[in-house]
Structure formats: structure tokens, C-alpha cells
């Protein structure tokens, strides 16, 4: 569905997107992750034909995004960041305008608008002025606009940005439902959202592609590297020295002291080796009281932090 090859966008003195390549197959829901300013929006704007790439190419459904821009745009339902809408239009009027702009006519347009409004739960506010809508409803109007012409591909830029937890859940449900007959590329920085909805994750940082895989695979890779947390009573300086000498331990971080004097440590340990036994042995040898020793299960959040921070 989407094929991106060495896509690059350079501004004066700054490279927003740096030669990224990826593919999105038909029917996939792909999460596009990255810290703010990583180049997610720029990439999406290039895919939707709003910005031209400086270098590289991308195609959607086999058509080049630059040379066949109108054809590719007709295939995409795009929801831009912050959902731009005309404030002095009514919801139904706006969706009607958008549907007709995207080539639907008369009865087809009316039916498509009705369907989209139902799906996104905006039927009850269809006669309201957009300026008077809450953020949640505006977001849903934007979503209804994106899917009104039943495009093969949905590109959603932070669809849950600024919503409350209930609304986030509703939108997430909706996206999962839409995923049954659409290909979806969505950007976000809410990781739990990605874990729950997306079949695959693409992480970019500072314009560069860092990882692209299934969320659980990314987490697995992380897990093998492993993170151990422990709480002991000891002089932190001395303890750090001792712990660092353990062969399987790669890095020691002291995370502070609690009210009762327990020192918290988190240790990054070698892959494929359970360092907990060695750590325990060292603690016993030193005679430190030990209250906790456990391996932390990595989450997508850990992967995200690890990938995007290690590159800085």
C-alpha cells in the first residue's frame, strides 16, 4: 500500500526527515512513533502530497506521491495534526462539503456522510456549529472527514491528541474497527495506544528510522537485554563499585534512597544471562540487607525511551 524509499526532507539548516524507508502492507495498522519534532508530521505531509520530498520517493497503491499526486490523494483519508476545520460551518455541512470535494455526489454523498457521522459518533451534533464543539467532537469530525470517501488508506496524525481517557478509548476502538477494512498509518506518542491497536510499529527519531517491527518483538529484543531492579541497605558508592564488578552487569544506576534508608538500584544486564543469581551472591558476600530483587518486564515505553535516547 505504502512504499517509502529514502524519503528525505531538508529545510534550510535542518534535516527534518533523513532518508527513511519503510513499507506498509495492505490491511495493516501501523503506528508511527517518535518524540515531538522527530519528523512524523513532515513524513505524513509528504505522503499526503502537501509537502514535496527533497529527495527519495514514495508510492501509494503503486502511484508516485509526487507525479500522480491527485491519484494518490484520492486514495488517502488524511486527518492532519490539530484537526483544522472551518469554525463557521455546521458539522453536517462541513462533511457534505468534504465528501463532494472528494468526488461523491448527491445521494452517495449524503449516505456516506450519514455513515461516517454514525461511525464517529457525531450524528447528535450534526447541526451544531463547529466553533461550539468540544475538542473531542472536533477530533471525531476530523476522523469522519478522513473516512467519508471510504479511502483505501487512512493517515491519521495524532488522532487522540488532547482527548480525555474515555474519548481516547472510544477513538482507539474506532481505529481498531476501521482497521478491518482500511490500511491505517497513525502517529502518536501515547505508547499504550500503539500496543493496543497497531500490528506494527515504526519508530523514528531526529528524522531517522530507528526501528520497525511488531510491538511485542521490539519488547522481546529489549527483554533479552534486561533490566534488574533491587533495593538494599548499603553505602551507595561502595555498592555501585561492587555491583559494577559483576561480569553480567553492564551498567549500574542509583535511583535514590527512600525514607527508611533503602537504596534503590537499577542494573542493565547482559543478554542471555540471568544476572540475578550473581547479584544475589554478591549481596550475600557483602552482608547487605536485601529487600527486593526482580527483573523488570520491558514495555514498549522502555523500547521507545531506549531507542530514542541512546541516539542523542
Amino acid at each position, binding site marked *: *500500500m505504502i512504499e517509502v524509499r529514502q524519503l528525505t526532507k531538508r*529545510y534550510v539548516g535542518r534535516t527534518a526527515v533523513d532518508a527513511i524507508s519503510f513499507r506498509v502492507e*495492505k490491511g495493516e495498522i501501523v503506528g508511527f512513533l517518535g518524540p515531538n519534532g522527530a519528523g512524523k508530521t513532515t513524513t505524513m*505531509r509528504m505522503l*499526503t*502530497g*502537501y*509537502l*514535496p520530498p527533497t529527495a527519495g520517493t514514495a508510492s*501509494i*497503491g*503503486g502511484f508516485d506521491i509526487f507525479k500522480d499526486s*491527485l*491519484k494518490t*490523494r*484520492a*486514495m*488517502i483519508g*488524511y486527518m*492532519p495534526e*490539530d484537526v*483544522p*476545520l*472551518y*469554525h*463557521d460551518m455546521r458539522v453536517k455541512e462541513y462533511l457534505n*462539503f*468534504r465528501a*463532494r*470535494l*472528494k*468526488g*461523491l*455526489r448527491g445521494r*452517495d454523498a449524503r449516505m*456516506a456522510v450519514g455513515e461516517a457521522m454514525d461511525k464517529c459518533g457525531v450524528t447528535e451534533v450534526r447541526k451544531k456549529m463547529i466553533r461550539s464543539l468540544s475538542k473531542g467532537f472536533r477530533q471525531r469530525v476530523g476522523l469522519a*472527514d478522513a473516512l467519508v*470517501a*471510504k*479511502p*483505501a*488508506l487512512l493517515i491519521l496524525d495524532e488522532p487522540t491528541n488532547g482527548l480525555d481517557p474515555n474519548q481516547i478509548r472510544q477513538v482507539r476502538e474506532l481505529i481498531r474497527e476501521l482497521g478491518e477494512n482500511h490500511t491505517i498509518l497513525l502517529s502518536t506518542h501515547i505508547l499504550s495506544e500503539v500496543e493496543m491497536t497497531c500490528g506494527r510499529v515504526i519508530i523514528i527519531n531526529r528524522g531517522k528510522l530507528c526501528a520497525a517491527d511488531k510491538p511485542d518483538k521490539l519488547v522481546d529484543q529489549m527483554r533479552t537485554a534486561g533490566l534488574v531492579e533491587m533495593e538494599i541497605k548499603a553505602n551507595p558508592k561502595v555498592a555501585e563499585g561492587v555491583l559494577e564488578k559483576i561480569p553480567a552487569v553492564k551498567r549500574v544506576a542509583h535511583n535514590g534512597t527512600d525514607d527508611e534508608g533503602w537504596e534503590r538500584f537499577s542494573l542493565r544486564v547482559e543478554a542471555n544471562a540471568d544476572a540475578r543469581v550473581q547479584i544475589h551472591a554478591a549481596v550475600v558476600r557483602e552482608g547487605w540487607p536485601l529487600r527486593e530483587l526482580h527483573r523488570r518486564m520491558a514495555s514498549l515505553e522502555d523500547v521507545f525511551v531506549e531507542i530514542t535516547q541512546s541516539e542523542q
Partner: protein
Amino acid sequence: MSSSKSPNPSNNDPVRVFTVLFGKEIKAFFLSPIAYVVLALVMVINGFSFKAAMTILETAPGDGGLVRFTFNAPWFWLSYFFIFPLVTMRLFAEEQKLGTLEALLTAPVRTGQLVAAKYLAALVFYCILWLPSLANFYIFQWITAGAGDIRPGELLGSYSILFLMGMFNLSIGCFSSSLSSNQIIAAILGFTLSLMHFLLGTFALDLAQNVDQSLKNIVQYFASAYHSRMFAAGVLDSRPAIYYATATALILFVTHQVVEFRRWRT
């Protein structure tokens, strides 16, 4: 992905996309309060100009009829150039501010269709603005039982030049609006450019008065003050029509490039 699966095979009908955009723009004009402010403004100007023309005819009847004096009244020129920024400042500036330009241009819409729809909607609105002034003359004619001095040539000439100058100045307004996302800046820029064109023509006309004929001919080609004087006297000339039409086309082309260029770099 086969495009035949999408339910909109008529996407590439350029006229339809234009019609949809045009309809939206026209609607936006009549739903915005500014439209009625401008309409009121134009009616007030016309009222004063009309009264000034009647006073002139009463006290010092000279060469020309009611229509000619109406559109040459100082009242008229004082306020005429306020119309354009008010009508056009919103067109692109608002879309840029709201971010809706991104929504429009990521739909299967060509930039040219957008520029044409916005410009023509403004032109249609501008033409509607002058309908009440036409009523002034006919009501006058009716009250005075046909004794009013309304000459068809002057009427045709005056409204022709209003249309031609409007066409040109609206394109300047469109262009200014495409340059900024701030409506006030767009309005001031448009006003300045329109007025500059008019005043330069007027000054050049004065200066060329005492110089040789060939220079005068050149100045007369672009001096709006001269055109309006001639047309209001009922002298219709094709040269100004060609001048305004080509200038408008050129400015709209530049506007198109500006909108495209913004897309290229923002």
C-alpha cells in the same frame, strides 16, 4: 491498490471540484458579517456620491449627466479602495491561519481550482455590491418621471469600468491574502498596492500633461483615473479592458505560484 475500488470515479472532473469550492466560497461570503458591512459601506458611498452629483447638476450643470458625476465624485474615490481588502483579505489568510489549506490541498484538489474558485467568488460578490447603486438611478428616474438625466452610454461605461477595475483590484487582494496568514496584514498590503497603482497613474497623468504626446499615451494605458473618466463619459475603449484582463491574469498566476510555493516549503 486498485483505484476502481474507491467509490469516487469522478474525482478527476475538474469543473465539479471547482463548483464545489466555488459554492463554499460564495456561501462563506454571505454568512460572514463582513459581507454586510461592505454592502452597507458601498451603499453609503453611493448615496453620498449620488447626492454630490445632484448638487453639481443643480448648481453648475455642465458637460455630462447624473451617472458620470456620481462616479467621479470625490466621495466615491475616497472610499472605493476600501472595498477590495475587505472582500479579499479573508480568502487565503484565514485558510492558512486555521490550517484548513492543508485539508484542502491534501484532498484531490488542484491549486489552480482553489485560486479560481476563491477569485471568482470574490468577483461575483463584488458585482452584487453594485446592484443597489443601479437601483439609485432607476428610482431617481421613476420619481422624476423620466426627467432625470440618465444617459445609457454613461451607465454602460461606468459599470464596465467598475467591473474592469474591480477585477484587477480583487486579484491584487487575492494575491495579498495569499502572502500572509494574518488578515490585517493582507488587507493593508492589498489596500496599499491598489492605491499605489491608482495614485501612480494619477500622478503620472498630471506629469505627462506637459510633456509630449507619446509619453501621455503610455501613461494613459495604465492610469485608472483616466480610464474611469473616459468610461464614465461613455467612451468605451478596448485597450483598458485588455490591460486589466491581462494584469489580472498575471497577478492570479503569481498568486497560484505563491500558494504552491508555500506548499513547497512550510
